[in-house]
């Protein structure tokens, strides 16, 4: 257990340090999300009431697209100088690598979301009518749902031809229920109609189940030859 924790921490520290110095994934993701927000904003031009109804969908579509940008780069880094091959022959636990990557991506995407939130509020004149603190839970649980599957499927698409195209093709169908729950919870909070509790519970269960499945199967993917 302590080996798992130490290797996870080392992987995470390495990823954070690399990202801090280059800011490649972060800048690409941020700019991409900004573009999506701007394009949606002037193609719909909603009133305040309409904005509350559609913003939930727009926010998560923007996040989903920009997460793909980050995830495609997440593993590509490990291919240079055969880092992944070296990892495969080392005795370090496979799941530590996966957990380190997932937590790293989670932090990047969460940071982008927190920077995007004010922009959304400005462009769509948003004011939540429901309990807005619940939005933090939606962000955390929803982002984890996208990132845990995304990191896993990025490791799969790494092994295919034209891998950058492959990732959304396999990730989006699996993410549909999670996106539906995130959109539902966000819309509920913005419009103040009903409670987001059910959607939050659903997201929590989704997170736990898919994290478990990923941890069970990651070793097979890493050692697939």
């Amino acid at each position: 257990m302590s080996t798992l924790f130490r290797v996870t921490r080392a992987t995470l520290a390495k990823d954070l340090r690399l990202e801090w110095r280059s800011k490649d994934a972060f800048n690409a993701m941020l700019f991409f999300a900004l573009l999506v927000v701007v394009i949606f904003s002037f193609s719909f031009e909603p009133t305040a009431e309409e904005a509350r109804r559609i913003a939930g969908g727009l926010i998560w579509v923007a996040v989903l697209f920009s997460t793909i940008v980050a995830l495609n780069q997440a593993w590509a880094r490990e291919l240079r100088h055969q880092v992944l091959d070296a990892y495969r022959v080392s005795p370090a636990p496979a799941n530590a690598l996966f957990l380190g990557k997932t937590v790293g991506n989670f932090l990047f995407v969460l940071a982008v979301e927190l920077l995007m939130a004010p922009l959304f509020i400005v462009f769509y004149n948003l004011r939540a009518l429901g309990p807005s603190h619940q939005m933090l839970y939606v962000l955390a649980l929803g982002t984890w749902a996208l990132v845990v599957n995304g990191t896993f499927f990025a490791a799969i698409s790494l092994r295919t031809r034209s891998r950058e195209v492959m990732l959304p093709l396999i990730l989006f169908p699996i993410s549909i229920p999670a996106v539906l729950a995130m959109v539902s919870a966000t819309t509920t909070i913005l419009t103040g109609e009903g409670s987001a509790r059910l959607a939050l519970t659903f997201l929590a269960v989704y997170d736990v189940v898919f994290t478990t499945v990923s941890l069970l199967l990651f070793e097979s993917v890493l050692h697939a030859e």
Partner: protein
Amino acid sequence: MKSPLPILALLTGALLSFGLYQARVAAPTEQTMGDIQRIFYYHVPSAWVAFLCFTANVLFSIHYLVRRSAKVDALAVSTAEVGVVFCTVVLVTGPLWAKPVWGIWWTWDARLTSTLVLWLIYVSYLVLRRFSTGSQKPVLAAVLAVFGFVDVIFVYMSIRWFRTQHPQPVIGGGEGSGIHPDMLFALLANFAAFLAFALLVVWVRYRLERIRHSLDEFHALAAVRAPEEARSR
């Protein structure tokens, strides 16, 4: 050894013709919907066969992850392909029936949406198989199949809970209560025929996959034995 394929194909053809007769002629016309209801004899059996194929695919995928046998992988890809074909039939015949009866082509109700997402997942499964190469392909595909299976449960629950603002359509003449015995017979006859047809196609597809596999192995061996010859080919 002589292949039993022609005999099985003939039997399947006879069964399909019998099913066609049952659905088009023998089954009584439904009171309110009229002849439109007859699409039910293709829609429902296709759905059952598609779900059976996908269930088989998940079982084969899990078996593959445990045992790593190439035969099981060939069965997994065969069942997935046939399942996608039958699922496509379901998704095409459904709206064709819904438009005159419900007045709409499509509604985001739990059963429709789950079937659509299931179709999307298995299409992505086939795309993944197409885009990955070598010996890692079966492992990656099997892993995706397991994810897809777990996901379907979530899809069904999520649509039931978060899409309730849409009215639940009432399915007249469904497989629930009060179906005429002749209708039930036509339905089951078609199910048997479709199932036989699906098994036949899976079997042919399986043999094709095995032949492909041994051809690949042969080429790989030949390349090891005579590198010069393989390069010139």
